[in-house]
């Protein structure tokens, strides 16, 4: 697997249009190859286009020119096929759902049967060290948790949908 290419970015340019002028060039002719199993950090000053590049890979935005492929597919198809997971910078938990229901969300969206979902949620909560609190979290809302717990409540989401599609989880951030 180690020789397989996970993310291939070739000659990608992203220009954000502005009302007046030529637009803001966020990325110009960026090329990048990330192999499966590789650990890559993007480092740079704020505003240099790190997030933009990640958003293009995750198909949250489209490049102005160039091509992005993920696991050999166009970024759009890879997103629809749920070949990877994303851990967002902020938790983005749904406040009307309990912590467990938040972890369950991606499985629910992919129509996983309820019993399987419950088992997987318990497994993931123990994985991130939240199971000691499970009795509380079953009923408590994310607002009642510490920010650290909130981030942990978020993080199992990505693997929970990835392992379901049985692909190697690759966090883009």
């Amino acid at each position, binding site marked *: 697997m180690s020789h397989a290419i996970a993310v291939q970015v070739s000659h990608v340019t992203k220009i954000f249009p502005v009302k007046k002028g030529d637009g803001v060039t966020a990325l110009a002719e960026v090329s990048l190859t990330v192999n499966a199993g590789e650990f890559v950090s993007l480092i740079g000053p704020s505003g240099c286009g790190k997030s933009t590049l990640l958003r293009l890979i995750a198909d949250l935005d489209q490049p102005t020119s160039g091509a992005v492929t993920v696991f050999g597919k166009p970024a759009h198809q890879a*997103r*629809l096929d749920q070949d990877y997971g994303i851990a*967002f910078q902020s938790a*983005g938990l749904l*406040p*009307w759902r309990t912590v467990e229901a938040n972890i369950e969300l991606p499985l*629910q*969206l992919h129509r996983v049967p309820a019993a399987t979902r419950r088992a997987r949620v318990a497994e993931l909560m123990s994985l991130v060290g939240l199971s000691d609190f499970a009795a509380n979290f079953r009923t408590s809302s994310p607002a009642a948790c510490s920010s650290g717990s909130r981030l942990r409540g978020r993080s199992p989401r990505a693997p929970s949908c990835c392992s379901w599609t049985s692909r190697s989880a690759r966090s883009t951030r």
Partner: protein
Amino acid sequence: MTGLVRRIGLGALAIVLLGVIWELYKAVGPAEGVDVAGLQLLPRTTDLAMPHIWDMIARALEPVNSSEGSPPVWTSVLLAGLSSLGTASVGLLIGSIVGFGLALLMQRFRVAESAVLPWLVLSQTVPLIALAPLIVSWGGRVQFGTFEWERWMSVAVIAAYLAFFPVAVGALRGLQSPDEINVELFHAYGSGWWATLRYLRLPASVPYLLPALRLGAASAIIGTVVAEVSTGAKGGIGRLIIEYAQSGSSDPAKAYSPIAVAVIMGLAAAGIVALAGATLKRYRRNEVTV
């Protein structure tokens, strides 16, 4: 629970206070009212202009008129109120469905929002009184098989016409309320519009939808009463308000019974919406007022 008791107590206190102010002004105010340079500022305090509250209550318990077997005023207005409440509920139901449907359409297609929203605002500037005869005459031409358009249906349509607007605007704001981060999360999960609607936009819209429904319910009641007056529909509270007001010079206390019932109808409608809201408690984290 004590909070609820307290709120009901405060509400009752406010009503009592209103009565006390009414009687206090009637007792100390000049009989001809107060006017400054020919402009009437405060009303007359005669029994004709401001009947005593106990006279209003006593009148409500007496028969409607002197004819044989005439029911007491309170049963007659209460029955009329129930009938109007039924019509208003139908109006609110239709209005909510149409309003929510329009909100969904506007959320789904940005073009629809720019195209439809100005018309919604415009629709509310048309005077109801002008609309009522039109709807009655259109309704008169509706006929399929044994179905026949009745006057109360026109009233319900007019009530719906008033009620759909707050629902449409509130629902649109609610459906658009999720944070960008959550919308992108669903996008990243590869969810389509329907799944995003069901798991994100609908739950997020509840804090906006409930106040909108409350406004819609109040609008439906007003629409029903006004429409009953302007279409001349029988059996409703609007009709009785007019009828009893006409006997104002000889029987001033009578006119207040249907007004009180109209107020009770409004409270009942708000109460029904509040009950519906109580079942959606976990979605009401930060209710907004629109």
